[in-house]
């Protein structure tokens, strides 16, 4: 037993913060201690390609719910409300597809241009709709995590107009980088 705080603070994973929860759950094969799951209020918008992305996301005290904004055959925007039960049903349906490997949420690059409605809902709210266990295990899938991030445009969202204007002078780099190998690299 080491008593010096500067040598060890990792008893029972307390010093591992939120990482400790996952570590413990994987090692013991048990479900991680349930955290209070934050329910979500989502605004999900259909894109011109027919796919959906989340444009607003707010934590809510009440049950999870969503506004679905779609275009009808005449190009008019319609809005419909979806309650938690309906969202859960869609998320469960998509989760079935994850398990048999057909869900676009676990495909590489699936979410870059939005996904179907069920996939979008699962991608952004799996934890609050289906529980932490499923949410965490999905987020450990790299493609899912990537699709989850790219199907959610709500964070600190700004108007499309200001976005277009601002981005005109900005540059991105690293396009030709050769450091894309999967081997261990910078350790020296």
């Amino acid at each position: 037993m080491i008593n010096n705080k500067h040598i060890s603070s990792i008893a029972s994973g307390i010093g591992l913060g939120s990482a400790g929860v996952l570590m413990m759950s994987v090692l013991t094969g048990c479900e991680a201690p349930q955290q209070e799951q934050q329910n979500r209020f989502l605004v999900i918008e259909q894109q011109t390609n027919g796919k959906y992305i989340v444009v607003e996301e707010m934590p809510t005290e009440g049950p999870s719910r969503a506004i679905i904004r779609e275009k009808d055959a005449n190009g008019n925007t319609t809005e419909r409300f979806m309650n938690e039960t309906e969202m859960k049903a869609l998320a469960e349906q998509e989760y079935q597809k994850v398990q048999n490997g057909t869900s676009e949420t676990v495909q590489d690059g699936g979410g870059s241009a939005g996904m179907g409605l069920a996939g979008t809902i699962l991608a952004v709210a799996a934890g609050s709709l289906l529980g932490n266990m499923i949410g965490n295990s999905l987020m450990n899938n790299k493609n899912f995590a990537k699709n989850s991030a790219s199907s959610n445009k709500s964070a600190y969202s700004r108007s499309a107009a200001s976005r277009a204007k601002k981005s005109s002078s900005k540059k991105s780099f690293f396009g030709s980088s050769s450091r894309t190998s999967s081997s261990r690299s910078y350790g020296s």
Partner: protein
Amino acid sequence: MVTLQKLNPLDDSKLEELGFSWHTDSDGSKYVSDELVEISSSEAEAYYTAGNEIYDMYVEAAEYVIENDLFFDLGIPFNLIDIIKKSWENDVHWHIYGRFDLAGGIDGEDIKLIEFNADTPTGLFETALLQWALLKHNNMDEENQFNNVYEAISENFKRLITLFDETSKFDSRYDGWKILFSSIAENDEEEATTRLLQQMATDAGFNTSFEYLENTHFDDNGIFDAHENNYEYWFKLYPWEDIAHDEPELATTLTNIIQNQKAIILNPAYTLLFQSKGMMKILCDLFPDSPYLLKTSYEPLDGIKQVEKAVFGREGANTKIINADGNVAEQTDGPYDNYKKVYQEYVEFPKDVKGNKYQAGVFFAYEACGMSFRKGSEIMDNMSKFVGHVIV
């Protein structure tokens, strides 16, 4: 002699569930050893003290380099000198974490500094989480480890706000500033390392996000993710010297961003001074009596066995072991041959019964905070193995 304890290994599927996918090396061998190095508590204390004292020496040496304009000697790219100086001038450019590679420390052997990975250290996931999991998986007391890494780095993120004050003041001073974390796409190890750092910062209380380097946008007004959200802090797991050489326009933009105080970049540019192996020559000049330093020079050393290294070499590439008679005993090639060379007195690593050699990696985040080992042969390269430790 290094004493080892045999372990039941974690199988690959469990490792992957933990988010650790780089468990197998390119030759098919396991990267994570199924043994632990035994150390005593006094050896752990000695590694702790060494990490703290060596860091203090590096800080003094960096000040000396800047005052005396010795950037060329260290091989620092000219287009980073300005940003290095600017980052050094203000404490808000806080060094989050680094890793010292050390020889010795076991069986009464003196601890000797091999080098300081101050800019983009990996081995973090393995040290902070995996070696803890190995003890837990084997029903051992997980407190018997020098391993505060997760908590120490999380606390050090808070110091971006509190600086030298108590980190308990973070909550009252933090005003929602956001940190963007970036690594290159399609490199699992770097991404997992970067996302782990993000998790540590989130636990500290920061708003954080992740964006691949390729999708991160820059102009003189700041740093933006793919959705044009602006960030006050940017952590990049990408070497400063590679930005200087491969993306010189970005080096200029980042210098302007620092000048205009639009964002703070982590690890700060001055960590490239620490990263340069040329610093070990400066350390020798400034602290000739330090027990931690091996004799190091910009010229070949006379009459002793020595190691030639590139100032910004990584993973043992472009390294030569030269015998006292001048013959090359062993050498590796690699992409770093264009960098300046330094010559460091040779030291034996501790060995196990099979003759494998062990190098200690001590992590530093405001203070020394944990350690692990790498096992390999004469030159530790990217086929070296990760070995956890236990305090007995």
